[in-house]
């Protein structure tokens, strides 16, 4: 009985073998997915590294400034505002520089 039904289902088109190229297509998609994952991770790593370096530079600069005794707390707000204005005036330069560093990171790590 079981074998009869199995044969009937096969005759009805169920249980047909998959197309010969199916496994190749699946593996291509899997590899593309893996590449996307790696690329995403590389971009995130590069952005995080740029931010970390930037934060480190700011902190190091502040410490050096303070050690040199040139840090005048009464004018910190003013200086920050001036720095902010400089960044605003040179936004394209700053954004371009950051992007260049990110792409350099992606280019370097993306080849690994």
């Amino acid at each position, binding site marked *: 009985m079981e074998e009869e*039904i199995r044969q*009937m289902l096969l005759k009805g*088109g*169920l249980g047909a073998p*998959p197309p010969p190229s199916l*496994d190749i297509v*699946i*593996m291509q*998609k899997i590899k593309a997915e893996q590449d996307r994952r790696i690329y995403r991770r590389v971009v995130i790593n590069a952005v995080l590294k740029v931010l970390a370096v930037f934060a480190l530079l700011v902190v190091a600069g502040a410490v050096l400034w303070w050690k040199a005794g040139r840090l005048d707390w009464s004018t910190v707000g003013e200086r920050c505002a001036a720095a902010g204005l400089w960044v605003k005036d040179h936004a394209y330069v700053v954004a371009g520089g950051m992007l260049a560093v990110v792409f350099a990171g992606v280019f370097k790590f993306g080849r690994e």
Partner: protein
Amino acid sequence: MDQETIYIQQVVAGDVNRYAYFVEKYQKMAFATAMGILGNEADAEEAVQDAFLKAFRGLGSFRGGAKFSTWLCKITINCALGRVGSRGSRDGGSRGGGGSRAGGGFVDIELADEHLADVDSGYKRLNDQDQARCIREALDRMDVEDRLVLTLYYLNEQSIEEISAATVWSRDVIKMRLHRARKRMYGILSRMPELKNV
């Protein structure tokens, strides 16, 4: 630790080529499952591709509580059913549209056990082409669930436990569905003129 678990760990660690082992081993089962639900090769092929891709994405969260084959089967069923849904809303669907259609000249009948042998002998007297056509028509008129349970049990040769793990059905429900699916298939065949007149 079995071989599949080791391979899964290797894939998760980034050795994507190891995944070819699973594709090679389970593509036939996945394709048969999708065909059982969708009934046409193009849709089944896409559903299987989706299923393997989803399994790959979720491999990191696969805890090994069930066998990989059962887990993949479950994903394949969901992908194929998703396509039935979208196809149904698009064109009403042919196979996989859901159920026997009384309007098409057939009613949803379950043949009594004593008539099964009559249908069987009538069916055997048909030539190969007519047999194939009759079965295809009968499958077209069956519910998705009926075709699915027949495929999983008879073609994929999965146990009741494995089917239960891959679907949301209990063991008793599966047994009942199998019984009804068989009788429905014979019931639909019994109404076909080719089998009536032999």
